[in-house]
């Protein structure tokens, strides 16, 4: 297992290096200059020139790349050209927000999706299956931001059950240690703050979680339907076991294998969706920030963030594979 993990980590290196080169070239292919973003509306050509010289934007791309790599090696990811914030520290400032959101979304998707998928998959073609499948399809085809706007309109503005935006209520005293607001609230025993953070996560979590939910429902359903037809389930029935044991030990434990993989694959989707959800709900996470970085040519942020995201993506997939090994003993040995 350890060998496997090490190997996978090692395999990530070429991908990340490739990505960093690709990104570097790509980002410099973006028209428009970071200098313009830095200087604003009425920047004079001289000022732009000075910025370009100062930051080396005029150097040959190759030279810029090596400078960049040189700094990377020293652990320096640079600073945002927009506001000078050190990229790493902003990333860690904002990342908790995105993780919290994604986690809420996944939680919603998993907690709801797996049972629904199970019920649908047990009787493929039954009325319950049809209801679940068609509802989950609706989930897939509704654009994330549209759903987000609708949820916000109905549940925050019209019904006033939930806050309209942001991660926390400014009126509630909260101490932030980790920047995971829910966690912070729990650590500091500021229960109201923790609760407030949870309440703020509900609508965005649902909006972001709906597509994963639909996907999880579908995969679970298919997996359950497949597993139900497996010989070992028939064996389990032939043993006269308690239905609950058959469901949990024999059906679900096997059906979860593809589901776990799918959950891992949702990471990319979640981050895409986070860009939109964070915009609608005004959450200061990396999604929104990254989008702004792209449109404003914030090279250092772009480079570092996309690399970080790719890294996280790979790590999540690694974790998925590892957890796969935990559930599936067949993977464990090899």
């Amino acid at each position: 297992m350890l060998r496997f993990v090490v190997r996978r980590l090692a395999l990530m290196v070429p991908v990340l290096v490739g990505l960093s080169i690709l990104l570097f070239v790509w980002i410099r292919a973006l028209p428009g200059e970071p200098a313009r973003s830095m200087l604003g509306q009425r920047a004079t050509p001289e000022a732009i020139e000075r910025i370009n010289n100062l930051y080396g934007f005029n150097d040959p791309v190759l030279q810029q790349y090596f400078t960049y790599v040189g700094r990377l090696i020293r652990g320096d990811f640079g600073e945002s050209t927009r506001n000078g914030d050190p990229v790493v520290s902003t990333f860690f400032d904002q990342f908790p927000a995105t993780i919290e959101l994604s986690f809420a979304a996944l939680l919603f998707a998993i907690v709801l999706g797996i049972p629904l998928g199970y019920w649908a998959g047990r009787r493929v073609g039954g009325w319950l299956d049809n209801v679940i499948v068609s509802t989950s399809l609706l989930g897939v085809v509704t654009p994330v931001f549209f759903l987000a706007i609708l949820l916000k309109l109905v549940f925050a503005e019209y019904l006033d059950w939930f806050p309209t935006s942001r991660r926390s209520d400014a009126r509630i005293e909260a101490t932030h240690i980790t920047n995971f607001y829910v966690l912070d609230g729990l650590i500091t025993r500021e229960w109201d703050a923790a609760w407030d953070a949870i309440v703020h996560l509900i609508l965005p979590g649902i909006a972001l979680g709906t597509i994963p939910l639909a996907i999880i429902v579908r995969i679970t359903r298919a997996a359950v339907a497949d597993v139900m037809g497996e010989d070992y389930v028939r064996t389990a029935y032939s043993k006269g076991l308690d239905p609950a044991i058959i469901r949990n030990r024999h059906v679900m434990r096997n059906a979860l294998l593809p589901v776990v993989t799918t959950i891992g694959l949702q990471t990319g989707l979640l981050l895409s969706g986070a860009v939109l959800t964070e915009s609608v709900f005004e959450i200061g996470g990396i999604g929104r920030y990254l989008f702004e970085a792209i449109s404003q040519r914030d090279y250092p942020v772009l480079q570092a963030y996309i690399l970080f995201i790719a890294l996280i993506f790979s790590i999540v997939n690694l974790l998925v594979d590892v957890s796969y090994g935990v559930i599936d003993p067949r993977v464990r040995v090899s």
Partner: protein
Amino acid sequence: MTERRRETAEEASSKPDSTNDQLLVVRGLKVHFPIKHGILFDRTVGAVQAVDGVDLDVPRGRTFGLVGESGCGKSTLGRAILRLVEPTAGNVRFDGVDVASLQGEKLRSMRRRMQMVFQDPLASLNPRQSVETIISEPLRAHGIEYSKKNRVREVLDLVGLPASAATRFPHEFSGGQRQRIGIARAVALEPELIIADEPVSALDVSIQAQIINLLEELQERLGLTYLVIAHDLAVVRHISEEIAVMYLGGIVEQTDSEQLYLTPRHPYTIALMSAVPVPDPAIEDHRQRILLSGDLPSPANPPSGCRFHTRCPYRQETRCDTERPELRLISPGHRVACHYAEEIVAGTVTPKVDAALPV
């Protein structure tokens, strides 16, 4: 002792060559599939020794049977002969031509002369091709002039399928009919050698005989040479003139069909023979059964010495686990790879009765 043994070995490998017309000559064939492991770059840390030093002579116009348990390397051997997998060592001469040395076009045209029939008839047919395409495509590929309608009909007729089958697709046929299509495709090229890898084991019992008979009839009509691979000793014995018994990548015994049945010499063959059930209560009730313990060891990590020694009821304290026995001629036309073949015949070496439970 050693001296004598070397002699017999030489004798064994030289003799068949000199005798009558051998269509296929295999010498020292090995196929090892590397097992790769590594942190960044794959290193080969071992190998699945699927085929590990096989000599084989298939006489022209005859049927040669290859029998052995699942995983012992039969299919790999068949494929290696056709260069469908690359052999690791050894050579294969087909009608005097070294198949291993052929490349590109030469190899391609050589393939026309050696064909294969597969175990799973459905899987070996492209589901998107009609029977007509399946049969005519190889003809086209080899630039063989043919009149489309006639040749396909001819071949179908040969394998006992109606002409109307030509326009249909594989999944519309029953298992036996599919196998006929597979055979039709193989014979369409008028090959000299057909390697049939488990040609009947996926078929219903009641159909197997049809296919076996078909194969026999085609051999008669077309003068084919067969290498029939199967795990079912009864089937192999039925159609083959010469049989080789394979165990864990190597051949342990080879002789003609009659001899093998009457006087099996290798302990594995003896056990195999005794394990095959016979549909006759009278015989079944009186049979002596030699049960082997355990399973086929992994070809990735084969036992030392005699590959069979871990399961062999006749295993002796010496040599069996240290020295790999060579396939040697012990009587005319009968070759066995066992150190104690003669002693077993003589009864000086007897099976251990106290062998462990079938592990």
